[in-house]
């Protein structure tokens, strides 16, 4: 009996040793992938780029995220094959799980995003919080760009996404956001756009990144690019705007303006469908702003002037949203999930509408009411 017990212990220990040892990898056997780029390859394939940080040599102090990077490239008929084939150019196993951002070329999206999204969903290594960007051009250019103080472009991409909170010109979009909208079908998806700029100040031909606007999708297909003003209108309507800046022209002057900081934006959407089956969308926006600067000749702030500014800001904000509605109707992209709202409010009507929703949506009537309030003038007399 005792012998059997000992044998059981030995077998258990062996089982533990045999089963566990394969799963471990030492850090100096790995390349940490920070960002991934996707370009179209030959014959409908995919060209994959991986940005890997170089590690300091033994005699140098560890630099963490200040290390230089190098780009690994591979091509395959699909994303998985390209990722697997990348190992033939890499002396170490690639660790995909730390990928901060995925940059997808617009050309890939034009071929249809479904295949790529499906592949990403099956890739268990990627975090759900991995940011997704799209670029008009080669994604490799984005990965090679160097921002000041962040030689790893993945960190620059994360920083730019966070900057959207104050500019309202971009919005962080993660793989999970895309999976969610893709699977639920509540609304069409949008992916933030990234641009590569020449760094004129650097003087060494360096490149900078700029995150402005979104690429909007209509189902699986790329619908169009939303420029800055349209993007701001979208974020306002979708109640995703946290802070932004607005400006108004000084009355009777050219080249001067009054600047405002938008500190709060709250929007409420209500939908209805009339007897002829045309959706009506009513959006109410409450916006709080502070006066932060004025280059006008006379900046004496009076209650009348504040009331006038509030009126002008109402028009300005409504104009931004109208631009967005015009864009979404033109490209038939339901980014606000109007269809789903009708589905929830009028389920019976939705049954009749859902098959023709792509045609019905552009006929929707949007009305916007903006209630602007200027809280602080921050000017002392």
């Amino acid at each position, binding site marked *: 009996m005792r012998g059997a017990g000992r044998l059981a212990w030995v077998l258990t220990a062996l089982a533990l040793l045999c089963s566990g*040892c394969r799963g*471990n990898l*030492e850090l100096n056997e790995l390349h940490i992938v*920070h960002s991934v780029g996707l370009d179209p390859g030959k014959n409908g394939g995919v060209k994959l780029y991986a940005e890997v940080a170089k*590690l*300091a040599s033994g005699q140098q102090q*560890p*630099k*963490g*995220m200040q290390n230089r990077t190098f780009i690994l490239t591979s091509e395959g008929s699909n994303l998985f094959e390209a990722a697997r084939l990348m190992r033939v150019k890499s002396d170490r196993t690639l660790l995909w799980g730390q990928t901060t951002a995925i940059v997808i070329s617009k050309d890939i999206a034009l071929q249809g995003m479904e295949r790529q999204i499906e592949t990403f969903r099956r890739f268990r290594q990627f975090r759900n919080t991995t940011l997704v960007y799209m670029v008009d051009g080669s994604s490799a250019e984005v990965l090679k760009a160097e921002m000041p103080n962040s030689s790893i472009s993945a960190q620059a991409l994360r920083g730019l996404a966070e900057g959207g909170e104050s500019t309202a010109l971009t919005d962080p979009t993660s793989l999970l956001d895309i999976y969610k909208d893709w699977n639920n079908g509540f609304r069409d998806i949008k992916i933030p756009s990234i641009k590569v700029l020449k760094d004129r100040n650097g003087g060494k031909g360096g490149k900078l990144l700029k995150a402005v606007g979104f690429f909007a999708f209509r189902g699986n297909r790329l619908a169009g690019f939303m420029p800055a003003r349209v993007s701001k209108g979208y974020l306002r309507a979708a109640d995703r705007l946290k802070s932004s800046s607005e400006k108004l022209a000084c009355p009777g002057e050219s080249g001067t303006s009054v600047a405002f900081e938008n500190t709060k934006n709250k929007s409420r959407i209500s939908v209805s469908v009339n007897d002829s089956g045309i959706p009506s969308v009513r959006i109410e926006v409450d916006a709080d702003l502070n006066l932060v600067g004025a280059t006008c000749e006379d900046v004496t702030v009076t209650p009348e002037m504040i009331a006038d500014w509030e009126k002008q800001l109402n028009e300005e904000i409504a104009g931004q949203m109208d631009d967005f509605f015009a864009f979404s109707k033109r490209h038939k992209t339901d980014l606000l999930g109007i269809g789903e709202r009708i589905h929830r409010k009028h389920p019976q009507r939705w049954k009749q509408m859902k098959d023709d929703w792509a045609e019905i949506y552009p006929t929707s009537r949007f009305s916007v009411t903006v209630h602007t309030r200027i809280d602080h003038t921050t000017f002392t007399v």
Partner: protein
Amino acid sequence: MNRGQTEFKEDLRASVGILKELMQHSDDLVFIDRELASGEPIKIAYVHGLTDDRKLEYLLAKAKEFGDADFPFGSDDRLSTAEQAADCLAAGQAVLLFSDPPGAAAIDVLGVQLRGVEEPSSESTVKGPRSGFTESLTNNLALVRYFCPSPQLKVQHRKIGRLSRTNIAVLSVAGVTNPRILEELHLRLDEITTDLLLGSTTIEEWIADNRGTMFPLLESTERPDRVVGALMDGRIAVMVQGTPFVVLLPFVFLQAFQVGEDYSWNYYIGSMLRLLRIFCGLIGMLLPAFYVATITFHHELVPTALLQSIAAAKEPVPFPAVVESFAMMFAFEIMREAGVRMPKQIGQAVSIVGALILGQAAVEAGIVSPIMVIVAALTGICTFTLPPTAMNYAIRLLQFGMTFLASILGYVGVVAGIVVLLTYLASLRSFGVPYLGPAAPFNALELTDVVIRRPATWNVKRPTLFRAVNPYRFRGGDK
């Protein structure tokens, strides 16, 4: 008269011969001739060096003034056999031999040079009583009585050790201590058949419920305030002559994270310190394991910037993380042990050489990564926050086991280790008290006073774990 016992003779020289024989003709055995007031010759025997000179001189000077049964010193006790007299001599008493009628009496003149009451170095405090026990059983008992002058405090003396005949004292509080636990303790003490009882650890090993465990099932302390606190909880103290460490029983796992000083501070501070110690205990046991598991199995869980820093630091190190971890933990244990054993004057040099030169050189040589040095140092420092009981050492040993499990199975191994450990701890008993109490079996009310320190006014009841006869410390209106 029992068999094998020798009676005293009418001839004092014969009695002296018997005693010399029993004391192995030791050269330090001294016999002095004196006469009582009645003119009866007597012999006074004592062991040179074991006696208090002043008491002995007084005895010798005054002997002739006393009657044959009138002695000025404490425990005068008539001895009926020579073996008893030999035991008394060995214990430092003076023995008076009489011829008419033949007999003897023992007088306590013990006087060994002992250190005074000092603050115990192993349980020092910032705030609270600073007295600690010494090697003298009498002094230790006096200290407890000083801290708790209650007539209900009961002391029972015993002698243990076939050869050493070491005095021990069992302390309990009548009306509080559970008599069944006390009875069980005496039964276990009866079973001790060792010839030598040296220190309290031998007693612990003899009377513990499970002698094969590395976890302490009994507590050991040098502080009288802690002993009094334990007695009032319904626990029992065992004091041993010749050691400042007093054994407290029963003992449960979570008490290892308590120190008496908790009650010297405001309950918010006391609670914070207790939580900190529990947290440090967890870090001390699990941090190297989690580090090894994370950087060899679960790289995805580390924030990117941190992983990049760790990877950059680990880049020149040629060893696997587990080897690095074991090396650092082993080196730390060596330095700690060297620091304890070295004379104080050079102990500082050891710590400086160990910490600064070895650590820095090892990092610069690329043998270990700086992050591993931080992990090993933090782990070591965390274990020092725990009271220096055997639990401290047990946790250090567990570090190695947990790290090994982490190295072969990652977090699964660590979790498996924790589950096995908790199961094992739940199976242990200390004098019948579940070792994981009051966490398992769960008692929320009592757990609050173990994990945090409750205000004294809330502690109406004693812990039920120790099955005190009177469960209440106080009731409303009691004075």
